[in-house]
């Protein structure tokens, strides 16, 4: 919405009115550009999303050299795909392995790797997740229907600085010979945060890549 309509007080909420007022005011003051606002919204609604991270993970699964580059310098390796910039300037890849599972949180606010995952889901920014992930990650995973073995080491990363973490889940069994595109379809957003695992081959979508980048 870049041309705010005259508010109808019997249909718009208080917040809708306040945001409309602020938008009009900031455009009139020349502080913000109306088209820039549209582009910002469009970028994060449609152009940046977890499909980006899924491609990174799938590539790491098939290409040992890429995986090594991702481990040594995740920012540069992710930039090979053109995924750079805001809230992803300093990337670190966390590799799950048998017996080791990573979970990423920002207890202090909502820091999240936008260039590879897009905007965070509401639960990631919520008080329950922010407070419990560092104390009871197993309980949090249970809320997602995920149970790990008692022997699994749970490493929780609190994103307190500008380092942004991308979990690289383990490759599902039964995917030998799969293409990167097929493998990317198995990589869920939650598996790259740590609150889920990748899909198994029999759960893969029938029509892959039908989703947009978001």
């Amino acid at each position, binding site marked *: *919405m870049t041309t705010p309509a005259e508010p109808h007080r019997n249909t718009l909420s208080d917040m809708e009115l306040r945001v*409309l007022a602020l*938008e009009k005011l900031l455009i009139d003051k020349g502080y913000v550009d109306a088209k820039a606002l549209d582009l910002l*919204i469009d970028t994060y609604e449609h152009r940046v999303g977890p499909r980006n991270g899924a491609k990174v993970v799938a590539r790491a699964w098939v290409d040992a050299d890429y995986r090594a580059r991702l481990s040594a310098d995740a920012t540069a390796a992710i930039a090979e795909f053109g995924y750079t910039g805001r809230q992803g300037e300093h990337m670190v890849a966390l590799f799950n392995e048998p017996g080791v599972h990573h979970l990423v949180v920002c207890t202090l606010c909502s820091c999240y790797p936008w260039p590879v995952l897009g905007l965070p889901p509401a639960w990631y920014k919520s008080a329950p997740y922010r407070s419990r992930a560092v104390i009871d990650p197993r309980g949090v995973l249970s809320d997602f229907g995920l149970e790990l073995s008692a022997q699994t080491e749970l490493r929780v990363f609190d994103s307190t600085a500008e380092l942004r973490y991308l979990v690289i889940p383990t490759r599902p069994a039964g995917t030998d010979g799969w293409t990167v595109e097929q493998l990317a379809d198995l990589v869920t957003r939650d598996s790259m945060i740590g*609150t889920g695992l990748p899909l198994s081959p029999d759960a893969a979508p029938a029509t892959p890549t039908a989703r947009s980048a978001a």
Partner: protein
Amino acid sequence: MQGFGRVVPDADDAHFHETWEPMAFALTLAMGATGSWNLDQGRFARESLPPAQYLASTYYRIWFEALVRLMLERGQVTEAELADGLMREPPRPLTRVLGADAVAEVLARGAPTERHPLAPARFAVGDAVMARQINPATHTRLPRYVRGRQGTIVSLHGTHVYPDTHARGEGESPCWLYTVRFDAHELWGADTTASSVFVDCWEPYLDPLASARAHSPTSAGPR
């Protein structure tokens, strides 16, 4: 704080849940791009909402209230103007305005916080450290749950803009940034299902422990 209950996964993949949220998001980014305040000042403004209001607000409501507060502080808008969106005061000068043609480039560039080191790192991988017991009235990124706790340096990340001073408008003062591993039992006692918690700490957050690396004879003791 604790006791917030279960994590409830989102019902769908929508980024925004209210009609006004996309614009609140865009206005925040666009005003942030003017250089009127830095990211750390922005975070501090959000944190500074009264706790009861903060906890009762949805995420983008917090963003909106903080944006309004930051702009009021700088005289960029007035309360009267906010009430109806009608400009009454002339605009304040800005360093820059984010034009449409610059959006893609600005987003792709981001705002890296790493800076050239001004001094050697005090700590090395493997060092035992203690997170300082601090309680600043202003912004910090040292979570309460690690203050006074012992951990181990697991990696160095160069020097980065130091948020504690940056949020007070006192400059970047870049400091060495470390990832510190804390054993979960050290943090929570027996009542935890985590194995370890990793926290990114700037050097001023940390003190060395007496049991520093054996092959570093010049290690200073705790201050």
